[in-house]
C-alpha cells in the first residue's frame, strides 16, 4: 500500500498548480476552474488522512470522509453562485477579464 506521504505530496502539487492558475489567468472562468482544482487537492489530502487514522476507530477515520462529503456540497453551492455572478457580469460587459473588472470593487 502506498504511504500517506505520497498522497499528501500529490495533493500539495495539485494545490500549487491550482494556485498558479488563479494567479496567472485573466479570464474569470479560468480562475474559477483553478479554484476547483485547489478544492479537490484539499479533498484528496482529507481522504488520505482518513485512511491514516483508521487505527483510532471508525468514528475518527470516517469523519475525514464525511468532511469531504460536506466540502463537495459547499463546492456545488459555490459554483452555482459564482457562475450566476459571472453570467450577470457578462450581460453588462461581454467580457470576463478580471483585470478590467474594477467596478466590482466595493
Amino acid at each position: 500500500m502506498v504511504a500517506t506521504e505520497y498522497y499528501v505530496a500529490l495533493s500539495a502539487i495539485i494545490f500549487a498548480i491550482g494556485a498558479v492558475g488563479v494567479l496567472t489567468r485573466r479570464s474569470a472562468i479560468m480562475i474559477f476552474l483553478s479554484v476547483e482544482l485547489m478544492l479537490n487537492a484539499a479533498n484528496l489530502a482529507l481522504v488520505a488522512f482518513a485512511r491514516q487514522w483508521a487505527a483510532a476507530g471508525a468514528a475518527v477515520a470516517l469523519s475525514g470522509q464525511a468532511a469531504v462529503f460536506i466540502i463537495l456540497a459547499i463546492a456545488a453551492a459555490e459554483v452555482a453562485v459564482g457562475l450566476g455572478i459571472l453570467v450577470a457580469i457578462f450581460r453588462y460587459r461581454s467580457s470576463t477579464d478580471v483585470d478590467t473588472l474594477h467596478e466590482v470593487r466595493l
Partner: protein
Amino acid sequence: MLTFVVLSVLMIVGAVGVITLKQPVHAALSLVATLLTLAVTYVTLQAHFLAAIQVIVYAGAIMVLFLFVIMLLNIQGDQPQPHFRWMQIVAYLTALLAAGAIAATAFLSPRELPNAELMSEALAGGGAAAIGEALFNDFVLAFQLVGVLLLTGIIGAVSLVQRKATQTAKDERELSGV
C-alpha cells in the same frame, strides 16, 4: 505503487492542462479528466462512496454547469498578458517552493500505515452506510447547515441571473420585430 504513479501522472498532466490551455472548453474538459482520475484515487484510498459521488456530482453535475456557462456565453481564450510577465514567473516559483516545502514536511515525519485488516474494518470500504453513520451522528449540524447553504445558494443564483419583467418584455418585443 504502480497504480499510484500512473494516477498521479495523469492527474498532474490534467491539472497542468487546466491552467495552460487557451480555450476555456479545453481547460474544462482537462479538469474533467483530473476529477475522474481523482475518483479512481479515492477507490485506492478505500473511499468508494466518495468516488461515486465525485463522478456523479463533480465530473457530472458541476462540470456540466461549467461547460454550459462557457458555451452559453461563448467565452473565447484569454489574451497573453504582456504587462504582468514578471508576476507569472513569481507565481510559478512560489508555487514550486510551496509544493516542495509541503511535500518535504510530509516526508520528514513519515508514519506507519495501520495494518490492512484494521483499516478495512474501520473504514468499512468507505461505503454509504459507514459515511452515513458518521454524517448523521457527529456531523448532523454541519449537514443541516450545508442544506441551508445550498438553498441560499440556489436562491442567490436565481436572483442574480433573473431579468426584470419589463426587460424581458422589451427583449421579446424586439425579437418578434413589433
